[in-house]
Structures are given as C-alpha cells and as structure tokens.
C-alpha cells in the first residue's frame, strides 16, 4: 500500500502514460480552464475510482439502489476516461452495433491486475445507422439508475470519445445461462426455481421501484457471476415507462408478448409474459411458441395456447399459464399485488426471498474458475471486421448532443 501511495504522488511527468501527449481534441467536453496537469489528475482519480469500485460492492436494498444516481459510487459518466486506459483482452459477445470485451486497466498497478471488467463499445456511426440512438440513451440511463442491484450487471462507469460510446460493466465469469441450458438441454425444477426466483426479484425492482420495463428477457441475457448468482445484462431495450404505455416493437421473436405484436401499447406486463416463456424454456429446453417461419410464431403467441409436456408439475404449469395470459388484465404479475402475486405462487413455495436477495442462498451452478479473468465460459467470436464507416464531422454536429449523457 505504501508503494501505491508514493506512486500516486509522483509528478505526472514521471508516470509512463501515453495520454500526456494526446491533444485535447478527443475530449468531447473540453473545459477551457483546465490545464493538462489538472486533466491528468482527474483522469487518474477516475481510474482509481474504477479500480476500487468493488471495495464498495455490497448488495444494496432496493431503496438504496434507487437513491439519486449522482450519489452513487458507480454508474457515473466519467469525462476523462479513454479506451486507451484499458487493455482489451478478449471478445465476450457481439451485437449488430456493439462488442463487449474483457478489459483490464492499462498499466495496472500490481494489486489492480486481477481487476477485470466487461467493456461494451458502441460505435456511434452504427448506432445512428441502425436507428438505436434512443435505445442506447435509455440503456445508459437505466443502467445508471439500477447500479448496485445484486442481480443486475453493475455499470461501473460510462464514457465516450470521438467515435465511440463506452459502458464499463462488472465482469461475470460464469458466462450465459443460455450456454448451460443448451448444454444440459433443460434444467430440473430446483435449478429453474432458483434462477427464476432471482429474476423475479429483478423484475419486481425494475417495475415497482423504477418503473422500468426490461423488454428483452431470455437466457442469452442472463449471466452467472463468480458466486453462482445471476446478473441480468443488455439493457438495450429497457425503458422507463412509468404509467404510460409504449409502442415500439422490440424484443426477441419467441419472447414477444401478444400486445407487442398487435401494437396496442405495452408496458411492464411484457416482462411477465417473457418470464413465463423463460420458465418454460428452463423446464422444457425450448420455448412454447416456435416455428421456422417467424410469422407462425407470432400467430401462435397471439392465440396464446401453450402446450405443456404431460408430466410438467401442476404448479409449474399453473405459474406459466398465469404469466402467459394474453389478456394483460388477467396476467400474473400485472394484476393487483404485482410481483408479490408471482412470489406467492405455489411453484416458489419454500423460497426465502429475503435470503435470496442478500445472496445468502447458494446457486446450483458455481463456475469453476482459474481466476477472476478466466474466460473459458464464453464462446469464441470472430475478430472485428475492418473498414468501418467514419463518424464524420457532419454526423457529430447533428448527433453528439444526443450522446451527452455518456
């Protein structure tokens, strides 16, 4: 520790840092008054904050999570952090306009070398081309508000540079529930209940504390952390809806709720529908509505007739039937009592919800890891294609204000 303290007080010129010489032009919010020295110090401070975020990592109660985002240690927009402050180790996942990397602080101090992150990089030009500006803004702002929940990926910080947006997240070394499920074909009731129960706590919090609809529940978006607990990731479609319905169609075909397909306006109830599909997929190994032709999937969803394997337990069947109810005024989770009616369903009998929230219940799968940066639970992805479109000055003029929150 003593060595660290000394190092922190060294004159900045002595630190081996490539940022010294970089011109201030790639700072999106330059402050006239700041000297290079001041900027450097603030940047070092931001890096320290990021490297130490886990020291403050305790499961917060829902009301603590909901405190003003500006009061939190995590989830802040950092003005000076840059991509060069991180070493990108390996791709953990890809999307149409984003790529998630395992990252660690560049030139990390000895005690920080094991501290790794998931760094989501979004190219501004692709975000704009795919008309996802609104969704990306929602994602950052919802993540900032929910940071600290035990079963939601923690946004440690966000920042941006000339052509990209960055979301720094905690790294979940266990990989996707999807991978475990596909390999196992299906989960037994005990495992399904445990994971379903942690998701119920997430939905309860998002809907009833934050007024947020998640809108993309599926096993691909649920990761397992080092201790075997879940983390919900990818808030690209999450939206604060409060008491107003919303209309944009988004989600994953097999998990879309009927009201989304019919465009009659939707709200948080879509997550309870998707939750029913999720429990079904856990227990059966595939979702209830499926066809090679997506339109046939939607036709089945709107008809809402779920077929159950004959031997599925009556409690599981009743839970899924309650959740996958086409009429939202009858859907479990959306009726009076909200998430509580789901928690009180007989299928969850015996669940100690308080112990579960505080991570005192051991999960059925605890990943076997060689170390905090082990990536064996993630698949291999192709390298990033070369030759991206440039983020032109014209685009910057028109759009950069929309990214000001980052």
């Amino acid at each position, binding site marked *: 520790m003593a060595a660290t303290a000394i190092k922190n007080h060294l004159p900045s010129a002595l630190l081996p840092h490539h940022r010294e010489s970089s011109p201030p032009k790639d700072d999106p919010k330059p402050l006239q008054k700041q000297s290079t020295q001041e900027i450097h110090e603030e940047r070092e401070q931001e890096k320290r904050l990021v490297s130490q975020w886990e020291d403050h990592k305790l499961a917060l109660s829902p009301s603590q999570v909901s405190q003003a985002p500006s009061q939190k240690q995590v989830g802040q927009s950092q003005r000076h952090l840059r991509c060069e402050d991180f070493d990108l180790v390996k791709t953990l996942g890809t*999307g149409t306009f984003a790529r998630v990397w395992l990252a660690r602080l560049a030139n990390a101090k000895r005690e920080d070398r094991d501290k790794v992150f998931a760094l989501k990089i979004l190219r501004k030009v692709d975000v704009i081309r795919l*008309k996802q500006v*609104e*969704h990306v803004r929602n994602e950052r702002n919802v993540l900032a508000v929910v940071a600290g929940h035990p079963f939601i990926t923690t946004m440690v910080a966000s920042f941006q540079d000339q052509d990209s947006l960055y979301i720094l997240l905690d790294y979940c070394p*266990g*990989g996707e529930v*999807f*991978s*475990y499920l*596909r*390999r*196992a*074909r*299906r*989960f*037994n*009731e*005990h495992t399904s209940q445990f994971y379903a129960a942690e998701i119920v706590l997430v939905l309860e919090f998002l809907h009833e504390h934050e007024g947020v609809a998640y809108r*993309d529940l*599926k096993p691909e978006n649920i990761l397992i952390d*080092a201790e075997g607990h879940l983390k919900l990731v990818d808030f690209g479609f999450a939206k604060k809806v*409060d*008491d107003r*319905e919303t*209309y*944009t*169609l*988004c*989600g*994953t*075909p097999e998990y879309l709720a009927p009201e989304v*397909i*019919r*465009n*009659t*306006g939707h709200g948080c109830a879509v997550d309870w529908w998707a939750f029913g599909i999720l429990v079904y997929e856990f*227990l059966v*190994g*595939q979702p209830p509505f*499926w066809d090679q032709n*997506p*339109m046939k999937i*939607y*036709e089945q969803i709107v008809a809402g007739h779920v*077929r159950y*394997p004959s*031997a*599925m337990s009556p409690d599981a069947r009743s839970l899924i039937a309650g959740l996958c109810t086409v009429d*939202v*005024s009858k859907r479990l989770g959306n009726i*009076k009592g909200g998430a509580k009616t789901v928690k009180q369903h007989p299928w969850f009998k015996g669940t100690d919800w308080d112990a579960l929230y505080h991570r005192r219940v*051991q999960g*059925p*799968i605890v*990943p*076997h*890891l060689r170390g905090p940066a082990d990536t064996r*639970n993630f*698949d*291999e992805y192709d390298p990033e294609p070369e030759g991206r479109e440039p983020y032109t000055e014209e685009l910057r003029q028109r759009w950069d204000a929309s990214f000001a929150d980052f």
Partner: protein
Amino acid sequence: MSDLPSDFANELSALTREYLRSLPTDHLQFCANYFQKRLQSQRAEFVLAQQLSSTNAGAMATTNFPGSNPFGSSPSNTAMHALQEEDETDQMTSPTASFPSNYNLNRRTSVSAESLNPTSAQNDNWAPPFHQKTADQWSRLKTAVSGNFLFAPLDDDQSTAVLGALQEKPIPAKDIKVISQGDVGDFFYVVENGSFDIYVNPSGKIASGPDGLGSKVGNVGPGGSFGELALMYNAPRAATVVSTERSTLWALDRVTFRRILMDSAFQRRRMYEGFLEEVPLLTSLTPYERSKIADALETRRYPAGTTIIKEGDVGEAFFILESGDAEVFKRGTEQPVNRYKKGDYFGELALLNDKPRAASVVSKTEVKVATLGKDGFQRLLGPVEGIMRRNDPSKASVESVDPLAS
C-alpha cells in the same frame, strides 16, 4: 476461510447448507454420504462434458454442482439420485419428444422496429395515406387479408384506415423481382391480378448465376399475399418473388401499418382515461391505475333497442358510452327518466355492491360501450371501497387502526 481455494470453500458451504437442511443425527455418516454423492456427480458430469465437447465446438463451462445436480436429464442424474429424481427424469424426457425436434438451438437475435412515439404524433397531425379503390377492389382486399392474424383483430375504423392505405403497384411485365431473398423488407403485398413465383435459395440470399434464385417453392395469384413479416420489423426477406406475367399488387409499408394501429390504440386509451376521470367513484385513482383500467376496458356494440342493463338485475359491470345515445327507464314510467350521450357512464355502483340495478338502460341508436366487470376491476386494483376511502379523511383514520386493512 478467505485463504481457502474458492471451489473448496464452495464445497464446504454447500455441505453446511445441506447439513442445516437435514440436521442429521450422525454427522460423520452424513458428511461421508454427501461427499460420496458429490464425487459421483462430479465424475458423471465430467464424462458428460467430454461427450458434449466432442460434438459441440463452443467452449463450455467446467462447473461444480454443490448440492443437487442442476441439470434435469443428464446421465449423472440417474447415477446420482437414482431414487429421488428418477421420476423427474422420466417426466421431462418422454413427453417432450412430441415437440418439434428441429428447434434452432443457437443464440437468438433481438429484433426492433422503428421507434414509434404517439406524443409527437399529436403535433404533426399525421393522417394515414388514403388510396381510392372501387367497391369490388375494397371487398376483394378485405377477403384477402381476412385470414391474416395481424388484420383479424382490427375494428372497423382501423380496418378502413389500413385498407385505404394500401397502394396500387403495377408490375408491367413478367420476370420482375418484387422482393429479393436476403434484402431488407419494408412492404407487405396483396395480389390484385396476375401471378408470381416464389423461390428460396437455401443459402439465405440470392446468389449470382442461372440458379441464383434457388428452387421454386410455390406460386401466388389473385387474393394471395406475401411479405407480411415486413409489417413487424425490418428482417431480411425469406424468399424471392418474381412476376410470371403482367400483374398488379397492393402494397402497405410497416410504418404506416403500425402507426395506424398505434394511433387508434393511443386515442382510445386517452379517451377512456378521460371518461374515467369523470366518474366520481373513481376520482382518487392515480394516473397509473387509470391507465390500467383503461387498458382492461372491453368494447361492445349494441344495435338500437337493446337493454344494456335491466332494472332489478344484479349488477356485475359498469359501462361508459363511447358513441350513440341511450335512455334510462324506471318501472312504471312510460317516458325515459334520463338520457345518456357519449362520455356518460352508468352501472358504476355495481363495482361497489351487489344491489340490484336501480333502472334499465336501453340503446336508442346503435351504441358502442366500454365495459369492465367488478371481478376485472378488483383483479387489477382491489375492492373499490379501499380506493374511495383514500380521499375520505374520516375513513382514512379508521383504516390506520384497522388491522385487517392493507
């Protein structure tokens, strides 16, 4: 404990958990049994992992499973918990055999359509395009889309707007590609006259060369339609459609279609919320509650002369008159004692008690009503008494000492 290897610590805590669950009298025997079981489980899982890794290219997790095996149907199940879980294994394997076995087991991509925002729609006075059609064309179009689940739930106004928005598209010759497999899709088409062949290339997109279209899988003629997935979101076309003669199509684009649905849903919801605000019994509803009730209201139509509620009957639902006129009669009087017009409500006392209806309401013209039953109301918001008590301070103090009220 913190110095122990994490997997060893996991084993110990899992053992402790199992121990606390069973509280055995013979500690040593319990621990011995536990570890024997764990060893079997772990070896079996190892064998399974090896089998899978030879068929599955993706890198997968090495996991340990404290407690029971999380996977329902793995071979280790029968080896490990022959007694406990045998029936469960049977349960989940045989009945699912009847499910489609060709389910795509890959990661599923999220989908999203253009952002639709009704609040801005109010300002720009958007009206759907209207293209003139003859009565014959109109009825042919109606028949053509009647079997499509996206069109079936539309009410008359929506249906008129959607059919009116279909635009004629002449196809002047044969061999014209209307849609090309793999291309982005924005339009849905109905065939007015002529004929089209459908081709699918198994590669997922048109290739160059004489067989680039792939093989012919069908033909579509007058009254047929294709491209309906484009009404949901922008997905690559699944087939190529080529004219075989001079033809005529009707085309409808996604944004127009979804916006018609959204605008009518949005207007109906706001209208219902506005009506609900006028009902004294429901003045203390929060906007969120009002929007839930508005969402649950059901539209019904009655021809002139229908008795909507009958004096003396037990009331079960309340009504809002959405359009048309109705009259109120009491037994023993010839003349109506009251008249209802658009926005008036009646039968609301049924939400409160089971007293018989105090009067009859008969439609004078054809009417459209929005209605909600007492059970529906209570399912969403609980008993109406509780809601009324909120803005009555004298009753609120009673509630605070009433141990049964919550």
